[in-house]
């Protein structure tokens, strides 16, 4: 890709700082998701891939991560009560 990856990544990392930390490690997860999405896009440009499926799955996995953490947090909160 013509754009220097480091430049894009540094901007994205800075923008990720603005993301709400919905659970522990969530922001890092988002950084990884976006990194992977850009990697998928890059690979898709070189040779066509089922990119939509890859992105859906990636988002789904992070959603699972978030749900699990939320459930754990809610469980902890309930047991505290």
């Amino acid at each position, binding site marked *: 890709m013509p*754009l220097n*990856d*480091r430049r*894009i990544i540094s901007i994205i990392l800075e923008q990720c700082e603005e993301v709400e930390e919905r659970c522990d490690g969530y922001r890092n997860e988002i950084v990884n998701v976006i*990194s992977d999405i*850009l990697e998928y*896009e890059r690979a898709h440009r070189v040779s066509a891939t089922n990119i939509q499926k890859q992105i*859906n799955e990636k988002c789904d996995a992070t959603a699972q991560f978030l749900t699990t953490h939320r459930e754990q947090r809610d469980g902890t909160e309930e047991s505290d009560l």
Partner: protein
Amino acid sequence: MKLLRAEFQNFRLLRDLELDFSCDPNRKLTVIRAANESGKTTVLHGLQWALYGDSALPDKGNGFRLHPIDWDVSDGRRVPITATVEFEVTSHRQAGKELRETRRRYRLVRSAFEDVDSAARRSASTVKLFALNDSGATPVNAPESLINDELPPELRDVFFTDGDRALSFIEADVALSTKRGRVQRAIRSLLGLGVIDDAIRHVNKAAAEVNRKAKRIGADSELKEVASRLEIQERQREKLELDLEDAKQQFASFDEKVNVVDRKIEATLQKGDREKLATDLERAQKEIGRLNKQLSVANKEHSGLFRSQSIATDLLAPMFTAAFGKLEELHDQGKIPSTTIPVLHDRLDAEVCICGETLKPGQPEGDTRRAHIQKLIKDNQRADEIREVITDLYYSAKPLQGEGSGTSSIWLEEYASVVERRDDIQELRDEAGRKLRALENQLDSLPDTDIQGLRATRNQYKSQRDNYLTKQSTIETQLASLKRDIEDLEAKRDRLLKEQKRGTRILAERDVIQDVMKVLRSAYERITNEELGKVSELMNHIFLEKIGADPEQGAIIRRAEISQEFDIIVYGPRDRTLNPDRDLNGASRRALTLAFILALTKVSQVEAPNVIDTPLGMTSGFVKRSILRTAVRESAQLILFLTQDEIAGCEEIIDKVGGKIFTLTNPALYPKILVNDPGVADRKVLRCECNHREDCRLCQLHSDAQVELAS
């Protein structure tokens, strides 16, 4: 990406040529020294053909011969043409907290066969890409994808620049929307906005998937109904966005068409306005008609002169004089006139006698005297006939005496006046005739272009362009309203999801997608705004630095910038906008385009080559050195094709930053430009390792003075 080496076989003058390029970050300049007509532009075309195929050739390769013009058909009527380029690609990937750098080397081989005939038909070229590693070369699928990704075709003008034509971003001969489009595409592509744009599109589709999941778990509830409505609205939004893009493209397309027709009209009008010429022609014909009438009157006047009494009196003047002499003699002798009767008649008419007494009728004395005079008249009427005739002659000729005997001729004066008037009219008539002929010739020489038709076409295009502009704003309004509806529906759907058991999972997915989208969009916006500002600022800096020493331009140009609308604007004193194509001299236009290209490459931090043919033409002294210095400083890899004249004065800079320097020579330039006979029968470019300060038997050139003397 960095270019490592290139190789050409049978590509025009490059029958068998190998080039290598410097990849040393401290000496990143490669100088390919070559005199004019020694293959510089051919190498530029060859590199681009290797990477992009026929679309990179002039006229997209149509009618553009690739094989050597002096190809010997005994070697075959189909010429194999090959261009090979080796390059290195560096990529980075964030792995946890670590940024990993990977360098890969590739070899791209493009080949085609071309017939040796006037049509120079050639087969579609084939491209093969190999990944180079320690174990050799491994074929890579879909080579175009990698090239399009590393050096997108829309950036061809950024990476491969013909210095003489390095104006595609600022030239006046294209519509504003076209220039804007080029600048916008170059910036977006080089800043990587394309890849983020694609990612946003795919993540958006993932968001639609979230809604479909909500619809599935909603069964027959309100959630299903809301999710279904949302689905429809999303589809509507997608359609409107496509329509909007289409309207924008159509607007730009008709804007360009208006511009093309405008240029045609302007070009035709420069040769002459057929309509105006026709009006001028009609006016000239009327003027000729009017002058013809005047001329006819003058001619009649002229011929009338020859029928006048004055010409007769003038012609008979000597005879008149002699005759009068005789008559006067008779008169003096008292033989004539037969004075009595006319005198007596005179006296009667005058009613006064010669002696002074009254002859008034009705008075007794007058009547008496009148009766006496009338008696005298009767007595005299009996005088002899000859004397009467002579007397008549004397008196009737008397009025002519003055005319015929004078020194000046009335007729001649009249003649001179009439002829002068007629000649003046004739001159005006001749002049009008010449003007008419000139207009007719001008009209005949005009191309058969229908200006009226062109104006009608232009108006049609303008009307269509305006329609698309209206359509664009209508769609934008509809989209704004639709987005508000979608937001309302999403809020409602999310509220309903919270009430569902499985809704939490879907809401988590929505949160993830929203966060990803937010990051991508803000990154996109930031790159567009901030990075565009940086490109603009750096371009201005480089540009002013390049032209700083030019007193002529330095006094006019204050700054240059890229607007938010992607227009490259140059400002003069008091912030007056200058037209880069008209108000800037050749060196400044070249400097501005190169400044834009270098700033864009630098800000994007892209590791890409800048291959520039004759970047220092039309420049000299400090400006020339300044252009070279800034180009070296701002480039990741700089490959310059320079003539000896361009190098002159820049030797010390090249000494410091030149990583690879070699010379190309065209043997066909012997003996006019080359000193020594290269002893090569074929027309082909040869390489020697002479640097910018050296000459060898092959590349040694005659001095300019010697060349001029010889020619």
